[in-house]
């Protein structure tokens, strides 16, 4: 259980595994740190993290985005990330990665191109931000590391799946 940095022509990809959903989120955060810097000193205070989203994949995307946002505004690199995830009722047993469909398609309209339906194309309502994450990270001051800048998290080729052995995820970061 952990992560590997995978080759990508221009950017950096992280493949991560974990026994639980929380573990795989934390492993991806470790991968993001490793893609940015080879070693971090043992300094820095912990700070809290809180994210909510409408689906499991969106929660992962927003969680990684939050780490980059906190990095830039706190001027600290978030490492040793710990998370606790609250799953909406009835969604905890998805073994098939079906979370990617949650909250994305209201199924109301096939013609999302006409602009008129834009307000209706979401199931919004009850499931909006139903997936929540709380946690914390240790913020290592940026001026004590020579870190490279990861610009953003991407949805490109993103995978977040439960397997017999636990959770697997693959995320491409823009560098």
């Amino acid at each position, binding site marked *: 259980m952990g992560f590997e*940095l*995978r*080759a*990508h*022509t*221009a*950017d*950096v990809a992280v493949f991560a595994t974990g026994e639980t959903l929380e573990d795989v989120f934390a492993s991806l955060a470790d991968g993001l740190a490793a893609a*940015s810097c*080879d070693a971090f000193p043992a300094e820095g205070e912990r700070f809290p993290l809180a994210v909510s989203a*409408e689906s499991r994949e*969106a929660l992962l*995307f*927003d969680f990684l*985005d939050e780490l*980059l*946002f906190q*990095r*830039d*505004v706190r*001027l600290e*690199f978030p490492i040793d990330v710990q998370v606790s995830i609250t799953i909406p009722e009835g969604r905890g047993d998805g073994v098939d990665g079906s979370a990617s469909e949650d*909250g*994305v*398609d*209201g199924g*109301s*309209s*096939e*013609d*999302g*191109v*006409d*602009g008129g*339906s*834009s*307000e209706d*194309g*979401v*199931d*919004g309502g009850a499931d*909006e931000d139903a997936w929540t994450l709380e946690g914390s990270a240790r913020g290592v001051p*940026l*001026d004590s*590391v*020579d*870190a*490279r*800048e990861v*610009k*953003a*998290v*991407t*949805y*490109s*080729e*993103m995978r977040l799946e439960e397997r017999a052995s636990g959770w697997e995820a693959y995320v*491409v970061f*823009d*560098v």
Partner: protein
Amino acid sequence: MATFDADGLTLERIREFVWEIPRQGEMGVPARVLASEALLEQIAEDKTLEQLRNATQLPGITNYAVCMPDGHQGYGFPVGGVGAMDAEEGCLSPGAVGYDINCGVRMVTTNLTYADVRGREEELVDALFEAIPSGLGGGGVVETDVGTVEEILARGVDWALEHGYAVASDLRHCEDEGMRAGADPSMVTQRAKERGATQIGSLGSGNHFLEVQRVTDVFDETVGAAYGLSADQIVILIHTGSRGLGHQTCTDYLRKIEREHGSLLARLPDKELAAAPAGSRLADEYYGAMNAAINFAWVNRQLLTHRTREVFADVFGRSWETLEMDLLYDVAHNIAKRETHTVDGEQRDLYVHRKGATRAFPAGHPEVPRAYREVGQPVIIPGSMGAGSYVLCGGAASMDLTFGSTAHGAGRLMSRTQAKRDYWGEDVRDDLREGQAIYVKAQSGATVAEEAPGVYKDVDEVVRVSDALGIGHRVARTFPVCNIKG
């Protein structure tokens, strides 16, 4: 008809350097690759062609999705991709612009020659490295509050002019005079503004750099003179973008689109192609936010220009005006712009998306700044830190072949992970200094390894294709003298 087979995909050779994947399956239009066979072989090695084919599924895409000669795999839309979507019935796609909105390059000329700099490279590279904020958390030339960020978002380089960081000629030598119409700061989120507030006038890291170069060749004396370029001259190239503000803006709109246009997104083969239907509220909001981020990037490069002028004045003991440090031009690599193009004899309003591609409007085009209208828009194509860069001028064929676009660089060939296995930053730096008299200074040795010259394609070949196709003509070639990066 000659064909090229690439892992299950067959490209047909339309004519020299023009290859086409015919429309099939879910493709909305054909896909085209502009490349020599050598470049096409490299392009076919990663997922570039698959991503280009996916891009043809974006609503309202017109004629074809095009990959420039330096194209490579990105996320969603390939890097080096150009797609023109109908501005009434198509879409506007943050994914097809990319995270680093208006990442781009500018060139500043000087009246120094290589002889003036020879022997002083170390002093110059140290002074630039000291003065130019770079790397992660390196701050900015201006560190300010959200209120000032909003002014910059609205006014672009005009803000820099008012505050003494620019002169009037800088505006005349920038697309849209450094102020994009339709910029709407209120459409940029507070998160994005907060990320940007400490990064105004900063390089960042990755492939961004500031390079002092010498002009080695002027291929076209007439255009070269119009651009103020001559052999042996020292010029400065600055490559950076809209920093965290732009990255956050793209991120925020991808998520808004995911929430509001799920049914459109579900029909696209890659979630990162996220697009808002033309005419929708989100398309208008993203256009306002993107234009504001474009202004931010211009100011970012302008503040670095200002610092560079100060460093040169210090090192060479003359004012920067005396050193004639004029902005030649500033080009954007990652943007979408509403432009009018002729399609099948009709004038059409299109959102032209250029992701890792440079606008290359030819002589006479009304949107080329007056200073260059008779010769065509300058196009600046950086090579790696161990190879030449090029100045081109926009060519007439670009209007037919590429919606007025050409390449943006050498294009990556090798992954960053592989580069760090193959290269060691200190060795790369020493080899460049001893072998080619190029002085490199970086915050991180790993960045030097990741950006080693060997990870890039052959920029000479990229430019040869652009020149032969007539989309961007060779004007001059430059070679690195000093390079700083994050």
